[in-house]
C-alpha cells in the first residue's frame, strides 16, 4: 500500500470530514449489498461498549459531581455546584490540596514537554541518516518504553537512592561532595521525575518523528541543495514545515500524557516531599478511591479535563495560525 498522504494532511487541517462527506454524498461506494440494518450491526459492538463505558460515564460523572457522593453513605444529598464551588474556595483544605496537585501536574507538563518534544526530534534527525547500526540504535532507545512504568519505577528508585544509590555514588566519584536527595527534596524530585520520564518515553516520540521525516518530499531537499542552502537553512525551511502535522501530533499527545502522569510519582516519590509531587490524577484517585469521596473526585476530573481540552484546542489554533503565515 502506498501512503495516501492527501487524506492525512487534510485531517490535520480539519478538512477530513469534508472529504468524507464528498465520498458519502454519492452514496459511498456503489455497493448495494446487504440490507438496511447492516450498518447498525457493524456499528453495534463498538457502540455498545462506547455507550456503556464512555457516554454513560460522561453523563453519570456529572450527576455524581452534583451530589455529596460518598461511596459508603446511604444518603447522597444533592449539593448542586457545591463540589465545584468548594474547589474555588481558598479557605477549604480540599481546594488548597487540589490546586497544589494541579500545580504539580502543571510543573511536570511545563518541564517535561519541551524535553520530550525537542530531544526526540534531535535523535530522530540523527537516526534518519543512513549508517550501519541504525536499526540497533533505534531499538535501544525505544526499549525502556516497552518495560512499563512499574519496572521503570522500581529500577530508578534503587538507582536514585540518596545514600546507597548508584547515581550518587558515581557523582561522588566525579567530585560532587553533596548527597543529592533525588527522591526527597525539591527541586531534585522534579529533575528525577522529568529525567526518568524522558528516559522512559523518549523513544516513542523519536519513532513518530522518524516516520514524519521520511514522509517529507525529497525533491524539496534537492531543490534546497541546488540553491546552495546550508544545513541549518534546510532544517528551518524544509524539515520543520514538513514536520508540522507530526509536530502538532507529538505536542498534543505529549501534553496529554504528561498531564496524565501518575505512575512515576506514585512509585518514585509517593508525592513527597509534603505532597509537592502529588499530581492531580494522583489526588483525584486518592480522593475517590482512598477517601471514597467520589462526587468530589468527579468534579475535580471535570475541571482538569476542561483545562486539557482548552490546551489542546489552543494548540490546534496556534499551529493553524503558523500555517497561514
Amino acid at each position, binding site marked *: 500500500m502506498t501512503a495516501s498522504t492527501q487524506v492525512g494532511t487534510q485531517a490535520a487541517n480539519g478538512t*477530513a470530514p469534508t472529504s468524507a462527506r464528498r465520498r458519502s454524498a454519492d452514496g459511498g461506494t456503489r455497493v448495494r449489498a446487504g440490507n438496511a440494518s447492516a450498518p447498525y450491526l457493524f456499528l453495534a459492538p463498538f457502540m455498545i461498549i462506547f455507550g456503556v463505558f464512555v457516554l*454513560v460515564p460522561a453523563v453519570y460523572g456529572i450527576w455524581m459531581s452534583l451530589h455529596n457522593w460518598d461511596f459508603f453513605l*446511604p444518603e447522597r444529598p444533592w449539593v448542586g455546584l457545591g463540589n465545584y464551588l468548594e474547589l474555588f474556595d481558598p479557605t477549604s483544605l480540599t481546594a488548597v490540596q487540589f490546586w497544589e496537585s494541579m500545580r504539580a501536574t502543571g510543573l511536570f507538563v511545563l518541564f517535561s514537554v519541551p524535553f520530550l518534544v525537542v530531544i526526540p526530534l534531535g535523535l530522530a534527525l540523527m537516526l534518519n541518516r543512513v549508517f550501519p547500526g541504525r536499526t540497533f540504535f533505534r531499538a535501544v532507545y525505544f526499549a525502556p518504553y516497552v518495560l512499563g512504568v512499574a519496572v521503570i519505577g522500581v529500577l530508578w528508585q534503587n538507582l536514585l537512592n540518596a*545514600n546507597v544509590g548508584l547515581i550518587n555514588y558515581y557523582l561522588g566519584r566525579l567530585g560532587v561532595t553533596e*548527597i543529592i536527595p533525588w527522591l526527597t527534596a525539591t527541586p531534585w524530585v522534579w529533575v528525577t521525575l522529568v529525567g526518568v520520564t524522558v528516559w522512559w518515553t523518549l523513544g516513542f516520540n523519536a519513532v513518530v518523528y522518524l516516520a514524519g521525516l521520511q514522509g517529507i518530499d525529497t525533491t524539496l531537499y534537492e531543490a534546497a541543495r541546488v540553491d546552495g542552502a546550508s544545513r541549518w537553512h534546510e532544517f528551518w525551511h524544509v524539515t520543520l514545515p514538513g514536520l508540522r502535522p507530526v509536530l502538532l501530533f507529538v505536542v498534543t499527545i505529549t501534553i496529554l500524557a504528561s498531564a496524565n502522569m501518575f505512575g512515576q510519582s506514585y512509585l518514585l516519590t*509517593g508525592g*513527597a*516531599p509534603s505532597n509537592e509531587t502529588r499530581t492531580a490524577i494522583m489526588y483525584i484517585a486518592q480522593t475517590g478511591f482512598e477517601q*471514597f469521596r467520589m462526587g468530589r473526585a468527579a468534579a475535580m476530573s471535570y475541571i482538569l479535563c476542561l483545562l486539557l481540552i482548552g490546551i489542546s484546542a489552543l494548540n490546534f489554533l496556534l499551529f493553524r495560525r503558523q500555517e497561514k503565515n
Partner: protein
Amino acid sequence: MPPLPTPPTRRAFLGLGAAAVTASALVACSPPDLSPVALPDVGEGYDGPPLTLKFWNGLTGGDGAIMRELLLQFRDEHPNITIEMFAMPWPSFYQKFPSAVVSGLAPDIGLMHNFHVATNAARGVIVPLDEAADRIGLSEANFSETVWRSGIVNGRRYSIPLDVWPDSLFYNRRVLENAGLDPDDPPRDRASYEETLEILAEQGIAGHWLPAIDPQGVGRGFDSLQWQFGGELYDEEGTRALFNGPEGREALEWQLERILSDQSKRNVSGGDANVAFKNDLNAFLWGGPGALINDLGSVEDLDWGVVPLPLIGEQPASFSGSHQFVIMRQRAFDPDRMRAAFTFLSWISENSIAWAGAGPIPARRDVVESPEFAELPAQSSIAEALPDVRFYPLIPGIFDVQSTILYPALSDVLLLNADPQEALDGAAEQANHLLEENRQKYAEAMS
C-alpha cells in the same frame, strides 16, 4: 479537533440522551446497604464439612511468614477449617477492603491497626463483636487495659486485639563497641543519648539516621517525643489539633537538631535508615518491633539489641500500634462460617505466644506473663514500656489526618525546607479543617 460533519438531528440527540439517562439510572444502583447487621447467634467450635475462610491483612514482611505458620498449626488442630491468607501492603489493604465489602468480595476476617478500627466501624464495613467476644470468652480481664479498650468505638467493640508494638530503640552493638562505648548499656535518657550521638559524630558516624521522608515512619518519632514532653496531638474529642503547642515544637526541634549537628544524615528515608543499620553504618534505629525484630533477626551478621525508647522529655511515652482482628460485613452471614471464624479467633488469641516470635508483644496478659514469653529477650525487654504506650485518639478518619497533613509537614521541616513552628501551625490549621469534615462525614454514618 475536527468539527462535526453536520449538525446532528435533534431527534437523534434526544434518543441518545434518553438512552444514556436510562443506562445511568440502571447503573446508579442503590447505595450500598451498610446498615447495622446482626451476626448469627453462634459460638465457637465448628465441626461441619470442610470450609475455607478468607483472611486479609497487611503482613507482607517476616511477620506474614509467622502468621502463615500459625495458620498451618491451626489447620492441624482443625482439619475442617482452612484459612486462606492474603497479605497486601497496608495502604492497599485499607484502600481495597472497604470497596471489597461494598462489592460483595469481602473476606471473612481481617487484621487491622487499632487506629483504623473507628474509621471502618463508622463506614459500616466491619461489624460489632461485643457478643462474639463474650461467647468466645474474651474479656478485659485477659488483656492489658489500654489495648483492650482501643477496640471500642462509641461504646461498642469492633475488634479483638492480637498484639501491641510500642516503638522502641534498636541499637547496633558492634557500632557502639567500635566507637569505644559499652554495647551492653545503650543510652536510656536524654543526656546520655545526646552524648553518645556526639561521640559517634566526632568519629564521623551519623549515629541515628532520622527518617525525614517515609509515609509511616517519619512522624512516629515526633508523636512519641511530643507525648514525652507532655504534649497531646489532639484534644479528647478529636476536634482540634494541639501538636503545634510548645511541646510539639520542642519535640520537632530536638529532631531537627540531630540532623543539623550531623548526628543524622540528611534526606533519609525510613528504608535508608534500616539498610544503614543492617550494614553497621549507624547505631540507633527507632521503630516498631512488629516488623523490626524479625527483619533484623534475619540478617546473619548483625549484632543488635533493643530497649524501650530513651526518655528525651519529662515522661516516658512511646507511640504504639496494635493489630486487631475484625469481622468484615457480609451481604449475608453464614452461621457455619461464623462459627469457624470464631473458632479461629479464639484459638489464635490463646496461642498468641507463637505470634510474639514475629516481634510484637501479645495483647493477652496471661501470655505476656507466661514463662515462654520471658524467654524471648528482645520482646520482654520491650514489654517494659507497656505501661507507657500511647495511641492516636481512636476517632474515625484520624489516620488520614496524621498521614496526609501532619506527617508531610514534619517531613518538610526535617528535609530542612520549612520552619518548625510555621509548618506545625499550618498543619494544625489544615488538620482542624479535616477533623471537622471527618466529624460531619462520619457522624452521619454512625447515627
